[in-house]
């Protein structure tokens, strides 16, 4: 088991290495660099023309004139040794600072959504498998399909509208106006939760729908297998027969797709955040690409993918723990 974990951990590092190269390549993709943008801004903002040598000196100042591989190495080196993602040109501070708070929000929403998804989809999926073809089952299927079909931004808008119209609250943004600048308190925390509730529900709905169907299908398959009948033949109580045996296996596909779920959530989060005016990384990403503030953009992409890669690792390990058959199959 330990060997398996170590193997997977090494794989994770290797993948991250390649990912970092790819992210760097993406950072290099848009034409021009910060120096050009800066000059452009300066010119269009103040009408002061910027000379070539000015641009060149800015470039030198930020180290943008070095060849690509050198910049890559110093970038990666900084991250790995000091956890320093580099400078943010536009904000004139470190990228870490700029990203910090928003990254926190992203992670909080991610965890919240995942919890909501799994807490809902697993029990409901198991229940639906037990009560196939019943009214509840059909109802759940309809709700699932809706969750998959309604675009998440629409859902966010609808929920926003509903809450404003019928509950008279302003759910948009992170805090209600009165708590915005206030110091932390229990009430502020509750307010935060209320605001995070809508995005978590929006994100969780489609993820839950997907997992629910998967759990239901797997559970149905397992219920028909011999070992369930054999367990009954041993005189075990029905609830134990269901929960200990087939349910345990129905969780497997859910665990194996944790990484995929995280990927999806990260893809949907920026849009939902935009609609709900939450300060999130997506907005920042757009801005940094517009400004060609490369280190910030790279840091965001790198961080998001790192989380996904890590969750893939977690899913592999947990799956191996849950299902002893996996270990033997190796890589």
């Amino acid at each position, binding site marked *: 088991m330990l060997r398996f974990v170590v193997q997977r951990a090494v794989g994770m590092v290797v993948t991250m290495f390649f990912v970092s190269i790819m992210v760097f390549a993406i950072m290099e993709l848009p034409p021009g660099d910060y120096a050009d943008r800066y000059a452009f801004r300066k010119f269009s903002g103040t009408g002061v023309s910027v000379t070539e040598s000015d641009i060149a000196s800015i470039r030198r100042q930020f180290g943008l004139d070095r060849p690509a591989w050198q910049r890559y190495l110093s970038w990666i080196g900084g991250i790995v040794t000091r956890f320093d993602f580099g400078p943010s040109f536009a904000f004139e501070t470190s990228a870490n600072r700029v990203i910090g708070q928003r990254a926190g929000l992203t992670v909080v929403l991610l965890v919240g959504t995942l919890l909501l998804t799994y807490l809902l989809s697993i029990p409901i999926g198991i229940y639906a498998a037990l009560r196939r073809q019943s009214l509840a089952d059909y109802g759940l299927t309809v709700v699932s399909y809706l969750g998959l079909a309604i675009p998440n931004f629409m859902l966010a808008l609808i929920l926003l509208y509903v809450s404003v119209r019928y509950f008279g609250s302003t759910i948009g943004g992170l805090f209600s106006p009165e708590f915005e600048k206030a110091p932390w308190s229990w009430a502020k925390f509750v307010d935060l939760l209320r605001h995070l509730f809508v995005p978590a529900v929006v994100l969780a709905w489609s993820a839950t729908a997907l997992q629910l169907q998967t759990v239901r299908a797997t559970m149905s398959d397992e219920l028909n297998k*011999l070992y369930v009948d054999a367990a009954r*033949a*041993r*005189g*075990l109580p029905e609830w134990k027969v269901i929960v200990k*045996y087939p349910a345990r*296996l129905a969780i497997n596909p859910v665990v194996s797709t944790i990484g995929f779920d995280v990927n999806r959530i990260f893809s949907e989060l920026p849009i939902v955040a935009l609609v709900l005016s939450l300060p999130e990384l997506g907005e920042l990403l757009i801005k940094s690409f517009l400004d060609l503030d490369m280190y910030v953009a790279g840091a965001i992409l790198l961080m998001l993918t790192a989380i996904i890669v890590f969750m893939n690792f977690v899913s592999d390990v947990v799956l191996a723990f849950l299902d*002893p058959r996996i270990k*033997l199959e190796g890589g």
Partner: protein
Amino acid sequence: MTASERPLLEIRELGVSFDTDEGMVRAVDGVSFVARQGRTLGIVGESGSGKSVATKAVIRLLPANARIDPGSAILLRRDDGEVDIAGLPAKGREVRRLRGGDIGMIFQEPMASFSPVYTIGNQMMEAILEHRDHLARRIGGSFDRKTAREHAIRMLERVGMSNARLRIDQYPHELSGGMRQRAMIALALSTHPSLLIADEPTTALDVTIQAQILDLMLELQQELGMAMLFITHDMGVIAQIAEDVAVMYLGRIVERGPTREVIREPAHPYTRGLLAALPRLDTGRRRLTPVPGDIPSPLQRPAGCPFHTRCPQRMPGLCDRLVPGDTPLDATRSVACHLYGEGAP
């Protein structure tokens, strides 16, 4: 009859139908047999003969759309009296106590009857602890996790599993086919049932392992004084393990009696056909002679005798109209065939 010869299990007029989309399907049609302490009753038949359904009915392990005839009786004799399993509520506590306690069952696919994600020890101890009261009555002692584990290890050793103390913590897929079958037997017998139902336990094994397992089962039966119901389609296995045999066809028992006699002098044409179909090395015959035709679908039961559509000795006008009753041939044998009935030639 002496105490040891009184039947432990008596099935009377058992009928089972399934409520399907295509209508009511009759799987077991008025079957009666007994199982005695210390003796084995073999039940032989093709796929579709109803043998599995009949035995599963004994522990009420049937799917939700199964209907047992109201007139059926499944009587089990226990220390505290007799109980009619057919009359018990299907999901009730009594039935659960019987399952795995008084009546054990082993299946054809040992890999499939263990859950792949728990160790065999885990599943064995679970069964032992579930039936701890029953065990206490049978062999005395009280059972907690520790004693249950020791008991499980003892059982594994008893079934010939090498290194039992190590194996008990292994997963089913880590054992070979033969070992898994032994583990399954150990699991079923660890609760000291008075009746063991074996549903084709050797069918999936190769011949050498098969022989070992059969020997093991005979030993254990003797030692524990169990009654056994052994289901198979293999006459050769029946000859080795069962003192009595019942031959089933399309939900009815067509012939029954002591195994030796039935094999030596089969009465029913179907039994004769089955025995004749066995490949033999000692005769010069080159071609095999299977029973002609296929078993009919239970949705289209033939009128009269169920076997008449394939019977080389059918009597038109009689066999296709009247269902033959159980005709005794002597004290221990009976057959359901018009050839032996009142209208016999």
